[in-house]
């Protein structure tokens, strides 16, 4: 039923000459959920639409299970309706002139499923998404969240090999988004379908995805499970996009295995994690997440302990962001809790754990084009 999806060296060049997707390769094992994450215009939706067959790639190969569905160089282009996949659109795309039942039954009708079997499957799908009581309603009477559930039922009712989801939650309000986000993963996992999910929302990606692929300017930068993405970002863009907002400039002085020593511009020495390929003598930017900055020491002498002055605080209710003047820069540190522990102007010791300080070549940038 559910099949693995394989995308190899996919390229899509628009008529303007700009490459929307540039040499993207990845695969999704059967039953897994992979999320493509990136800012708008990074090519994630185009990639998804190429898999759906709604967009025609320029080159590269896409296969679903054993079948190659798209290989322009070999003249293979299977139309969407023959790819046996389900798709959920950002705008829901439920048909307003039909009832909930008619919407969900539509794909079965096009497949010529006999009425009895069809009704059973529609009922099952509606139960799966929690809309059993709404079958006879016109979809126009539903809320946005319910419409998206109809769209989900419609795309699952024929047990497709692959489920594609194109920012399915971005048109919903914040509260509904959180609920449907959790439900979505449960429902997808229950059916066991292979899923490819596109979003620009990190939180969504982390909750939903077995693995997350970060894209930028048509390139897939890193595809990994969420914890790897957050603890070992492949480059400066991934680090910064996933929230490592503090940057300290410096130069690599020595390397020892995966770690090394960096001299910050202000003169202090830091122990940092070094990705493969970064050599002594290279100018680097050290990225640190605000959540990984530890305020105060536990007494023992730890590496990367620095003296910092609190230059400002941003109280956010359940957490506080401290602006720390240190290492010749302003470093944000985030601490959970409703109490502000350090006053502005005070001096404190700050620990930057070396495993959570990542040094990237300085020429890498954090903006997408």
């Amino acid at each position: 039923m559910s099949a693995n999806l394989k995308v190899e060296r996919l390229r899509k060049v628009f008529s303007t000459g700009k490459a929307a997707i540039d040499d993207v390769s990845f695969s999704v094992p059967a039953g897994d959920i992979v999320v493509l994450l990136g800012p708008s215009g990074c090519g994630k939706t185009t990639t998804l639409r190429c898999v759906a067959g709604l967009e025609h790639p320029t080159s590269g190969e896409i296969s679903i299970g054993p079948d190659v569905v798209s290989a322009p160089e070999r003249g293979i282009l299977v139309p969407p309706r023959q790819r046996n996949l389900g798709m959920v659109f950002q705008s829901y795309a439920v048909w307003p002139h039909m009832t909930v039942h008619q919407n969900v039954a539509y794909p079965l009708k096009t497949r010529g499923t006999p009425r009895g079997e069809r009704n059973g499957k529609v009922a099952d799908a509606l139960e799966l998404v929690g809309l059993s009581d709404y079958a006879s309603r016109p979809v126009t009477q539903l809320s946005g969240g319910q419409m998206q559930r109809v769209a989900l039922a419609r795309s699952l009712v024929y047990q497709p090999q692959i489920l594609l989801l194109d920012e399915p939650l971005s048109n919903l309000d914040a509260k509904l988004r959180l609920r449907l986000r959790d439900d979505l993963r449960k429902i997808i996992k229950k059916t066991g379908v292979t899923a490819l999910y596109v979003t620009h929302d990190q939180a969504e990606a982390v909750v939903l995805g077995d693995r997350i692929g970060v894209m930028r300017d048509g390139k897939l930068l890193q595809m990994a499970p969420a914890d790897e993405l957050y603890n070992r970002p492949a480059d400066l863009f991934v680090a910064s996009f996933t929230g490592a907002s503090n940057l300290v400039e410096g130069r690599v002085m020595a390397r020892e295995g995966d770690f090394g020593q960096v001299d910050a511009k202000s003169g202090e020495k830091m122990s940092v994690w070094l990705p493969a390929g970064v050599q002594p003598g290279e100018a680097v930017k050290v990225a640190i997440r605000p959540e990984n900055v530890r305020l105060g020491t536990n007494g023992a002498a730890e590496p990367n302990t620095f003296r910092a002055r609190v230059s400002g605080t941003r109280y956010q209710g359940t957490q506080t962001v401290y602006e720390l003047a240190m290492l010749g820069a302003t470093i944000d540190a985030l601490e959970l809790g409703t109490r502000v522990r350090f006053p502005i102007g005070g001096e404190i010791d700050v620990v930057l754990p070396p495993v959570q300080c990542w040094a990237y070549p300085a020429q890498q940038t954090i903006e997408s084009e």
Partner: protein
Amino acid sequence: MAADAAVASGVESIAQQTATKAPGSRGLLGWLWSAGLMLTLAFLVLYPVAMLLLGALTNTNPVVDGFGVFDLSVQNFSEVLANPNVHAALINSLVACTGGTALAVIIGLTFSWVVVRTDTPGKGFIAAASMLPLFVPPLVAAVAWSILASPKTGLLNILLNTVGIEWRFNAYTMTGLIVIFGIYYAPYVYMFTASALRNMDPSLEEAAEVSGASAVRTMFTVTFPLIAPAILSGMLLSFIVMLGIYGIPAVLGTPGDIAVLTTYIFKLTAWSPPLYNTAAAVAIILMVVTGFLVWLQHKITSRRSYTTVAGKAFRPAQLKLGPWRYVTLALAIVYLLVVVVLPTLALIVAAFRRFLFIRDLASLFDMRQYGLLHFERLFANPLALRSIWNTMEVGLITAIVGGVVAFAIGYTINRTTLPMRKSIDVISTLPVAIPGLVIGVAYLWAWIGLPGGLYGTIWILALAFIARFMPDTVKALSTSLLQIHRELEEAAWICGKGLLGTIRSIVLPLARPGVIAAMTLLFILAIRELGSSLFLYTSNSMVMAVLLLDYYEGGNLGITAAFSIVQMILLAVLISVANLLSRGGSGDSSGVGRAG
């Protein structure tokens, strides 16, 4: 601190201003203004319609008896409803309009789909071609087609004869009427469906495709059902216009003795003695049917639209037609040929040829047969010159008076909180449901019996046109008024300008392109209007459209064609001026449309 003081006094004066009252709300002047507008509307719309109703309910002859005696009875209606001639006319009307509408839907829907959803080359050209028929006066189109496809002397039939084909075109049949209706009123369907297709979220179709539906199945189960309200709306509108049109059935129906409601009404008033009461009764039936259809169309258009807008900007997906895209292009070219090119050529041939009798193809290209004879004879007739002069005069009066009245109404409805503005809105929209011909009969009833009145002057024509095109003008002006942000006016009030001063210094300059466009539109509509002129002209107030029909009915196709060309050139010049003035604004074409 001088600056502070100035600010403080500024604030104070603002406070005073708001404390007195916002301009354009109530007060005695406001009441007077509203009452004035209501009186104007009553004079233009309500009184003639009331008189029409009265006429239908009595047997008084307004010319002979004046308005002394009123025997109210529904006898006219019961007679009319029992009259087999009325039945025949009604059935003919319904058949012609239904057939014409069906053809219009096929053509309009096809071209809107071709333009919005396919990769056919030259789509800009096709889009323009699909709208062009709106600018051909229906009377002129009908005349041209009678030159092309009359059974004996039609140019197309001469062509068929030369190539040895037995079959003949015949425009003087029900089929001919249906085809001419269908091809000239397809733009209504096109306008509605093209914009609906453009606004449709493409993912609705993509979802069907991903669900396993083929392109054809998607079209019939998703695309067309989704734009069904737009199709229905365009259908009803074209039906309404066909039902109220006089020129085409008068030209094509009369030779074959096919009477429709409009031609039948005119026939009643042309008998001697004229049956004004019966005409009024039939006109009211026509008005009721039209009113019902307009109401239905309004219901459909105001219902929540199916076309949902997605979160992100989209452009409609385009179907790659492959070699078929040249077929669709060819279809559009054929349409343009049939609707514009052939009729124009026919008019030119007929206008410049001494005798329309053409033995064979060689004779068609024999230059010795051509000359300015018909134009010379046309301009030698003082009535022709007078009709051109009258038409321009009527057009000018209609444009200026109608424009001013419509601006006053549009501003009152959209920009003030004056009393009675809801009623003003409703009454000014009322003429939408009254076919031009019915307005003509109503004005006839309203003024023919009053001695020394309007009847027989060009003013009655102008007033009838103002009433008839009031909804279109008010709507066009309201659109341009609504584009001026309210705060621009409020800023002027704050600066101390009064209401009139604000209108003069802020609203009028900003709305000027819209006002000028609306007035030009009125001018154009007025000079081509036939239906209501028929009942209101006298030899002193003869207008072009009526005289053109007279020439046609007198059997002189040469002069008719020459006069048609004169009228077309005049219109073309005016439309280009209008386009220049409104700088490519296309919002007004619907107005040209409804006038038929």
